[in-house]
């Protein structure tokens, strides 16, 4: 299924107008677009560049530099798994494999039915309760494959 690339131009324009006079405005603008829309539509780059008197290349360069800024809309659910050392010390790599199999989605991708996006994250600051996973913005610690499946059954992931 092709991913729907339509985006809300009015919403982006309102964000840009509201923040363009901040010092170093580009980051707050991109952050807000990402937070509100879930991605930074590539087609919005020209609009942002014009408002900030930057080149499109400059804006694109910033968008593509930061891992948080998605270039396509995410799935209906977003699962982020920590892959950093502390979580690796308690089985994060096996957990990533399990989640990928269980949700039928590759790490760094969105499932074909658009249900789930699975992302790696490098440290959630929950290292004292490793391994850590964030499901739709909610953090869970000490995640085993069984605990993850339980969370899915409990409805943390809306299929």
């Amino acid at each position, binding site marked *: 299924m092709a991913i729907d690339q339509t985006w809300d131009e009015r919403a982006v324009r309102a964000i840009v107008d509201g923040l363009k006079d901040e*010092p*170093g*405005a*580009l*980051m*707050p603008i*991109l*952050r807000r677009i*990402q937070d509100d829309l879930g991605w930074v539509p590539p087609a919005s780059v020209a609009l942002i560049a014009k408002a*900030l008197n930057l080149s499109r290349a*400059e804006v694109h*360069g*910033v968008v593509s*530099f*930061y*891992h*948080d*800024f998605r270039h396509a809309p995410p799935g209906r659910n977003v699962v982020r798994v920590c892959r*950093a*050392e*502390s*979580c*690796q*010390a*308690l089985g994060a790599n096996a957990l990533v494999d399990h989640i990928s199999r269980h949700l039928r989605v590759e790490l760094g991708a969105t499932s074909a039915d658009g249900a789930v996006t699975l992302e790696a*994250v*490098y*440290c*959630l*600051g*929950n*290292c*004292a*309760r*490793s391994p*850590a996973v964030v499901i739709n*913005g909610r*953090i*869970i*610690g*000490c995640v085993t494959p069984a605990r993850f499946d339980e969370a899915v059954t409990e409805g943390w992931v809306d299929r």
Partner: protein
Amino acid sequence: MSAATIYVPGDSGALSMGAEAVAAAIAREARRRGLDLRIVRNGSRGLYWLEPLVEVATARGRVAYGPVAAADVPSLFAAEFLTGGDHPLALGPTEEIDYLKRQQRLTFARVGIVDPRSLDDYLAHGGYRGLGRAIELGGGQIVEAITASNLRGRGGAAFPAGIKWKTTLDQPATPKYVVCNADEGDSGTFSDRMIMEGDPFVLIEGMTIAALAVGAASGYIYLRSEYPDALGALNHAIGAARARRYLGASVCGSGRPFDITVRVGAGAYICGEETAMLESLEGRRGMIRFKPPLPAIAGLFGHPTVVNNVITLASVPVILDRGAKFYNEYGLGRSRGTLPLQLAGNVKRPGLVEIAFGLTLRELIEDYGGGTASGRPLRAVQVGGPLGAYFPGAMLDLAIDYEALAGAGGLLGHGGVVVFDDTVDLARMARYAMEFCALESCGKCTPCRIGSTRGVEVIDRIIAGRDRGANAALLRDLCDTMAAGSLCALGGLTPLPVLSALKHFPRDFGLESEPADAAARS
């Protein structure tokens, strides 16, 4: 009878273990029993294996129960926990728990104790006394106090804070800025997060003192996006401080203006490097800058800027309040004061241990940590985050201070200690260090940008058993180039975990012993 007070942490680590459900269950059960309760969402005490750690205020002080699940709540009420009744989860008076009792909490004095949303609670626990003293002293004398305390940057670089502040104070250019580096990206570290979630006012007070010291009128907190709960806590606290004139046009009626803006990053580890962070704050890619000029002279928007880590700034109020001498009496050698250590990974009792410099790794991991969580033998410890060295179990008697760890070929960094049991494969961890560097490199320096990718390939060849000796020598060459030819710590220090893994754990690479170095080969 007045309402009983119950503490259920709102710290994200506690939330990750179900604290929200526990708080809801307590409120529900109290309603069912017709009891009037006040539930405070405090920070975490840092005893994470006991989270959610529920505390009850009783006549004999606060008593603890943990780890509490929502299902335990009816039985806690039945056991009369509101008056400290006995229960299988009862831990006794919180302050008497050995792990906590043996610590020396200066920076973390209020974390887990106060309500992080209450400025009154902060004031009742000694908050803003440091600022009061700072207003009496004025710029030069504040800087002298920080210099005399020997406080060094807790973000990882350990640069003396007083010297940095003096440099900015001496600049004639205006405006000046105070920037707090809250981009705590090192795996195994969470002390910044705990402060921001559990005692946000102490960071605001520290930044305000820094601003008075150097003559800055505005400050920024650059917060990583992975910490949404810290963002909420900071913004709430900044609002409360403004409403009571602790921030604004005239800080506490001193006539000096200062205000703080929180900026959220976007998932780039490199933005924890101070110059990359400044670039990001200015709205650009997080590419590091050449130094000089130092940020203290030409930093944010080209103006003199004090850049300090969260823990550094949060340690400032206690230094002003209790005096430089008081703080300087803790620690040993050139590492003075206390350090909030963060114990993580495969360890039975992970958490936050704030103590004077000089504890050994063994004391931290065995006495506090209780050994591995898996019960298997400890094999390796990584100290100082992803750019820190891997040490074998035989080296645990190393003292935790900046110089001792540097002398052993490692670094203390931001104070994170990650424990691994004997199932760890250090060749895989070395590969991961290179992979992480490749993923996070800003791309400015060729040795970091290209070297990290080549490093992954070379380690892959070693793991696959292809010409191991020669490839190990090549890996050492490559690490030399990265260490000597990179501008910042990412490319410059990625060789530390890689080479320490190779040195201490050669068998994981299929090598009998440490390979001959490049010089001996040629």
